[in-house]
């Protein structure tokens, strides 16, 4: 008779553990998805700042037509990207295009001195920092979630409920190459 009670106790404990792990996975997954949309918020902020930047630069550097087309196209692509992986790739293209704009602006001292341009530059730098911060937060959540579903006892729960690991939002391929500084 006593064995029956022990067996029931063990089953009860197993069920409680299963529920706890399952809920932990669900909660972390939702947090990770929310962290992704936080990155999205910052990316949109950058998208909104760009038309203004293009107009300001056009005012001083009318002949840089290729540049403007490149930036505008990159921005449109980034806005229309579907899914995390495509979005990450298109956003990196946009980051590179923006870098070219600021590099070109170095040749136009009047543009550099313009208050509007400086303010936009500040805001864009801040947005880049915010994207960086949101990315770090997202990666932290991804790391926690991936650990939780891959650690030994939990991996059985994860397998049963079909949880797949998230991908880390890595640095741009272009950024990984160390820039050469030539004097």
């Amino acid at each position, binding site marked *: 008779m006593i064995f029956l009670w022990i067996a029931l106790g063990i089953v009860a404990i197993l069920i409680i553990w299963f529920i706890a792990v399952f809920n932990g996975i669900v909660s972390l997954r939702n947090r990770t998805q929310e*962290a992704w949309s*936080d990155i999205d918020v910052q990316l949109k902020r950058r998208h909104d700042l760009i038309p203004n930047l293009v107009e300001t630069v056009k005012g001083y550097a009318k002949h840089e037509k290729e540049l403007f087309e490149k930036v505008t196209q990159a921005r449109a692509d980034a806005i229309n990207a579907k899914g995390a992986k495509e979005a990450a790739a298109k956003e990196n293209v946009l980051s590179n295009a923006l870098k070219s704009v600021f590099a070109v602006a170095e040749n136009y001292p009047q543009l550099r001195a313009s208050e509007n341009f400086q303010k936009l530059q500040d805001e864009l730098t*801040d947005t880049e*920092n*915010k994207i*960086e*911060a*949101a990315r*770090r*937060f997202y990666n932290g959540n991804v790391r926690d979630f991936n650990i939780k579903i891959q650690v030994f006892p939990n991996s059985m729960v994860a397998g049963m409920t079909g949880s797949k690991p998230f991908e880390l939002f890595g640095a741009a391929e272009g950024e990984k190459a160390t820039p050469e500084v030539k004097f």
Partner: protein
Amino acid sequence: MGFFLIFVIGLGYLLSWVFDNQFILVIAVIIAVVQALVSYYYSDSITLAVSGAKEAPRKEPFLELHRLVENLAITAGLPKPKIYLINDSAPNAFATGRDPKHASIAVTSGLLDKLNKSELEGVISHELSHVGNYDIRLMTVVVVLVGVVALLSDFFLRWTWFGGRRRSDGDSGQLGLILFIIAIAMAILAPLAGTLIQLAISRKREFLADASGALLTRYPEGLASALEKIAKDREPLEAANKATAHLYIESPFKETSQNRGWLTGLFDTHPPVQERIKRLKAMISK
């Protein structure tokens, strides 16, 4: 919070039973409820007012500071706290607030002048970690519990002094007397032990905030360098007093003796700066 309330009310009930007086219970309940509510909801405004802090608006010259705090808050996944400025040339900072949604961070003008950007990031990430680790709420509960322990021992001492001297002549005299002396010794030492435990907890949480901050910025050198600068600056903070000293990132009183003994070290709210810098530098992966 609720647990504490029940605890104090239970204590009041016990005491009123012991002293056969209902009035004590009523008073105890009123005091406990009022004090719990006030300290829970207003501790941050009280702390800020006592320290002479004024809210810093999001525009020059505080725009960079606001952006810095915003970005760190995004990295931590915390809502952005309110930012306050204390007009004092001694570099220091503190965080207050019962949970991340109602948090505030205060920095001195000296801090903004003397630290560079990565050092400032280190300090702010340390303060933000205090908020995220609910350290403020933890220390409030600890302080109150220590106070309750002190009250309890006080009551016990008075009770034995004035009432409990009914010695049963002879029979269990020896053992009873020894136990009695031990009880009195414990009653005297208990508040002291409570305070030492509170300070030990405070030091441990400071180390934790250092480590959490370094995890946020992935750059422990920033905070290490900031701590070196702050420790070298011997100017004491005018607005600080013993009640708020433990909240600051480094003790605002600048005790002058560098070779504090082990015993006096137990009474510090913050761990020694050299130890904190050493631990931070150990985190730097080569």
